[in-house]
């Protein structure tokens, strides 16, 4: 019965965030034109990437809400590398996650800052790789939108063309809000099924996986880091609460693997791979998967080796 408790609790916890995500995404779809987004996004990558990394401070969404929003932004003309950078950095570099990490690691502020910095560096690096090496938009055309095009051709373009003028004036149009809600429920069902599957499997893993095996893994640095990647992937908890899970491992694991857990988890986990697959083409998802895994692992090991101790001493002196 513990399975049910965890399964339902993950769904209940994620519901507000995924709803916020789909509502925001639908709002962007209906009210904000592609032109506006293109105008607001910096053109140069050296500006665009930091911009995307810090966008999470203004739009603090966690990973469940993030994917529908980013998919929408990409459809509306945000460059791919900016979208992906936001997708990766957003769930880490945002005030909600900072607060929860700070709460969890009150004693070791170096971990809190390390998490934020590593999130920034990793996302920026991946964004740069995508800027250099990926061209085209690897978005999947979703069934719902295919149908839209099929039936009334005027509908989808209308969203950007007809509304692109004075959007502010029509903010109170009832029909417009009706279509926000309608889009939101389309996306809710599209994204929700992956959330449900993720919650189902996570609950299964949490009730089956024994934590005693972990201590053996924690011995060597490499296996500890690798294990944390795998664990974060399977556990699929929201980035707003994963810091608390990380603290519960403190006795067993050192700060490095915990950082890996807290940087990798928000960027990539089981639940959000499924959501990625709903939004992006398979090949791109695989590329992203490899990129994220290799980059976070390398960066976090390097960070542990050379930066963490230095940071710790400097913060302690203060």
């Amino acid at each position, binding site marked *: 019965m513990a399975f049910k408790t965890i399964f339902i*609790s993950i769904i209940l916890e994620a519901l507000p965030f995924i709803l916020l995500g789909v509502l925001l995404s639908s709002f962007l779809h209906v009210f904000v034109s592609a032109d506006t987004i293109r105008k607001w996004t910096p053109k140069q990558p050296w500006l665009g990437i930091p911009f995307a990394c810090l966008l999470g401070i203004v739009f603090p969404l966690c990973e469940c809400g993030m994917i529908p929003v980013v998919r929408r932004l990409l459809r509306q003309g945000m460059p791919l590398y900016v979208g992906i950078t936001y997708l990766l950095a957003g769930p880490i570099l945002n005030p909600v996650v900072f607060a929860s990490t700070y709460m969890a690691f009150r004693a070791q502020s170096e971990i809190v800052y390390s998490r934020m910095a590593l999130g920034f560096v990793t996302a920026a690096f991946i964004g740069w790789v995508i800027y250099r090496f990926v061209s085209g938009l690897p978005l999947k055309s979703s069934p*719902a939108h295919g149908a839209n095009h099929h039936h*009334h051709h005027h509908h989808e373009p209308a969203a950007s063309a007809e509304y692109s003028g004075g959007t502010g004036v029509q903010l109170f149009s009832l029909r417009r809000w*009706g279509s926000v809600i309608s889009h939101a429920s389309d996306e809710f069902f599209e994204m929700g099924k992956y959330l*449900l599957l993720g919650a189902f499997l996570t609950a299964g893993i949490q009730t089956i996986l024994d934590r005693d095996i972990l201590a053996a893994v924690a011995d060597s640095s490499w296996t500890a880091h690798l294990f944390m990647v795998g664990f974060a992937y399977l556990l699929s908890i929201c980035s707003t609460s994963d810091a608390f899970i990380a603290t519960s491992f403190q006795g067993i694991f050192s700060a490095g693997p915990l950082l890996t857990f807290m940087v990798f988890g928000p960027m990539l986990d089981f639940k959000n791979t499924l959501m990625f697959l709903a939004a992006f083409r398979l090949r791109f998802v695989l590329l992203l998967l490899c990129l994220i895994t290799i980059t976070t692992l390398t960066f976090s090991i390097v960070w542990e080796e050379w930066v963490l101790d230095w940071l710790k001493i400097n913060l302690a002196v203060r």
Partner: protein
Amino acid sequence: MSEASKTSIHALVRAIILFGFTLYILYLNEQGTLNYYIAPRMELYVKLAGMALYALSIQQALHAYRSWKHRTVDQSCSSCSSAPQGTWWKHTGIYMFFLFPLALGLFTPDTALGSQLIERKGMNFAASSNLQSSAPKPNSAVLQDEADYQQPQTQPQQPEVPTTSGTVTDNTFQASDGSSSNDRDDHASSGDDTAASSMEQPDNQLIDDLTVSEGSLTEEELALLFPEDNALFAGYAKYARTVYNDEIIEVPEHSYTEVLTTLDLYKHTFAGKSIRISGFVYKPDELESDQFAISRYAMQCCSADAAPYGVLSSYPRASSLEEDSWIEVTGTIQTTTMNETEVLAIEVLKVRSIEAPDDPYVYPNFDFGL
């Protein structure tokens, strides 16, 4: 079947599912079992989500009605989307998947997490381990003997000696070590017998010397025992001072983990004091037959992140206690060694069985020690 009537059926099914989730949230709220799944500070968001779901379901229902009415006419409603593509069995599968948690939620009893899951989650016997930079490791044993009861205050300033330690870390380490021995001199010269006696307690040994609890201490003595010299521990030190003279130290629900952390931080100083604590019984295989753990789950957001906290208790009639039953325990604080870590323990004097509390979990108290 026409496209419009398909759309209508889809919208209807969606409306029902969305409304189902709204009802489920309402139902949990009415039953008072929402807190089995979600921390109180998250409940507002879940309720708001329930309202949003309700709005979505109303819209879908209207959409279903409109599509049905227009099913013979050419569909011209521009604000509504049409039926998703795909075969009917695929959609049925997906909708069933959405109905599954609802069915599971409504037709099986709501239960809070219990001892069953502790083995998987891993029990936290040392509440203060979150505050200390790392669990004591065998090679740092010397350091611990030296610092002994002052360890909580001085440890954060001492960077862990990393395996690849450079000269800089070594220096810092030396410096703080020196200051900690100065502290000790201060205590010794103040003639504080209690402090001295607890300091001389050898590590890893059960303290059954009850003289520590005799008489109550003055403000100054308390200030020496629990100095507020470190911002990190100030809250705990402050709390420790307010309860040290209590006849029985209570572990209240509203700051359960915080009080346990305080006691665990200053376990050598508190050894011998009386304690009253409640929780459920947990008896894993690795404990002796006269031992059990009195435990609570501490929850941050939802039960997926709930972490079990426990205090090792020794009680001759431990075998008579039923696993998962709720009890209130009165006993004496001790320390004991578990998996090479020194932890807080209770020698149980009295056990009283109690009703399971309305809220099975405990939550972090962010106002603690302010």
